[in-house]
């Protein structure tokens, strides 16, 4: 706990409700003058016990629950959950459904990065950036909505397949939206490069070096901004990422600017992946015909065993450890979220910076409290 030691120090509580925060958490900041001398993070304001709930729900019901774990990356949560069950039960998703999954997950990455990027602008006082990116995000969300039927909590991926096929006219709409997003990305980049205030606030602030980032267990864009090309899609390929061509976007500086830049680059990269996937997508069924449990099977028993499976969430490495005891409910589910270690890395990262940069640094990590708390 943070305690005052000398009279010239002051403690500022940031949160649990603060414009900087995408969800409630609290930063207790000890200041000396304007410099942060100590800091601690309080979590748990939206801890809802997802792991316990999952133990008491059947596998199919579990999909809806993991959806609500991180509301900006619902599809990668579903992917990791369904991936675990598929590995336990020995199911292989059909090729077509694998491609569809790649498409929707990348779409979800785009919308998440757009929001993260805009939010960061908002945190450093650049509110119009938020308005810009939300506009693009709505377009991307409308694409997702076309496929899955909902905007943020999809319940779309199933064991061994997906719930619905791609709708008609999806490809054309995709092309149209991507055109807009590409233009917007270029504009944002131009803004970033030329705006002095933005650069003052972000270049050389909150620097994370590769060694320290690894030590802290950080993954995702924050790690890639330090020059480590660590991406689960490449290191431990799942779905059809092996057949697709994409770059792992990295920067070397490790500061706020680099993190934001990585996110922007990843938006472009994701669009490229989706276009390839739309070109290559094979025809075929969504579920294997001999699958014992398909789209709507309330009771499925999964053989005894345990599995640890990782996917690349928009925010980094998302892992899930699932133990099955042979019944229709998982025995234990442990979620390794990407935000948990990122939040943990905040205190050492912010220490020594000035109070005005706290929001900028914490915001640039693109944290999602819901998933850190679970």
């Amino acid at each position: 706990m943070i305690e005052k030691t000398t009279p010239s120090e002051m403690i500022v509580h940031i949160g649990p409700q603060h414009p900087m925060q995408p969800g409630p958490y609290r930063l207790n900041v000890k200041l000396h003058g304007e410099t942060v001398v100590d800091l601690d993070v309080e979590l748990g304001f939206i801890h809802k016990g997802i792991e316990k709930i999952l133990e008491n729900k059947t596998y199919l019901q579990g999909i809806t629950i993991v959806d609500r774990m991180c509301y900006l990356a619902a599809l990668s949560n579903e992917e990791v959950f369904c991936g675990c069950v598929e590995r336990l039960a020995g199911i292989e998703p059909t090729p077509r459904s694998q491609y569809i999954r790649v498409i929707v997950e990348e779409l979800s990455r785009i919308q998440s990065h757009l929001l993260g990027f805009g939010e960061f602008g908002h945190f450093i006082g650049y509110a119009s950036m938020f308005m810009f990116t939300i506009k693009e995000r709505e377009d991307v969300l409308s694409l997702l909505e076309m496929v899955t039927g909902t905007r943020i909590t999809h319940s779309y991926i199933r064991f061994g397949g997906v719930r619905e096929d791609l709708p008609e006219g999806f490809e054309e709409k995709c092309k149209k939206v991507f055109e807009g997003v590409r233009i917007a990305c270029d504009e944002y980049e131009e803004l970033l490069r030329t705006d002095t205030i933005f650069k003052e606030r972000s270049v050389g602030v909150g620097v994370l070096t590769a060694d320290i980032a690894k030590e802290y267990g950080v993954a995702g864009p924050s790690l890639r901004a330090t020059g480590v090309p660590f991406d689960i899609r490449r290191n431990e390929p799942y779905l059809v990422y092996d057949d697709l061509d994409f770059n792992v976007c990295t920067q070397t500086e490790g500061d706020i600017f680099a993190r934001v830049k990585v996110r922007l680059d990843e938006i472009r990269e994701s669009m490229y992946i989706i276009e390839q996937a739309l070109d290559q997508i094979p025809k075929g069924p969504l579920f294997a015909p001999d699958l014992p449990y398909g789209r709507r099977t309330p009771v499925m028993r999964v053989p005894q065993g345990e599995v640890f499976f990782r996917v690349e969430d928009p925010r980094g490495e998302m892992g899930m450890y699932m133990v099955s005891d042979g019944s229709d409910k998982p025995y234990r589910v442990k979620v390794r979220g990407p935000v948990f270690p990122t939040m943990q890395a905040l205190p050492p990262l912010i220490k020594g910076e000035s109070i005005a940069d706290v929001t900028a640094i914490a915001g640039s990590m693109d944290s999602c409290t819901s998933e850190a708390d679970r």
Partner: protein
Amino acid sequence: MDAKTIIDSISNEFSDSISNTLIESEIRVSAYVSSPDVVEVCRYLKESLGFDHLSCESVVDYIKRDEFEVVYHIASYDHPVVLTLKAILPRDNPVIDSIVDVYWNANWYERENYELYGVSYTNHPYLKVLVLPEEMLGEWPLRKDYEGFPQKTAKNLV
């Protein structure tokens, strides 16, 4: 580095404490470790085998066997092998050494395990509640014999 070399290497180095090694696939291996040696094994893994990334640390409550299993998922930023290291603890007095010295980011995982399961870690720098409210400490909500779940206070339950 492939799965087999890793398993051979740790079982040679710690022939007393490592048991039940298993190669599940090319990128997943698992082993049981006797609980007093966890820190030593982790240090060896980190320094000699390149396992520089603690991916996850969790606890599983095997109430039928009256045991807790502390599960460490240790991965690397360079190779794709994930080692699942498990230590067995008795259910009535679960105490194990903290590995914060080796893996810095184990800190919060251990705090979480402490408040949800009651596994207490020796040598931990700050073993306090993380996500639960202060007054819920001691209920150990994720244990299988926890009585407060499901909560029945909602008035519109059917």
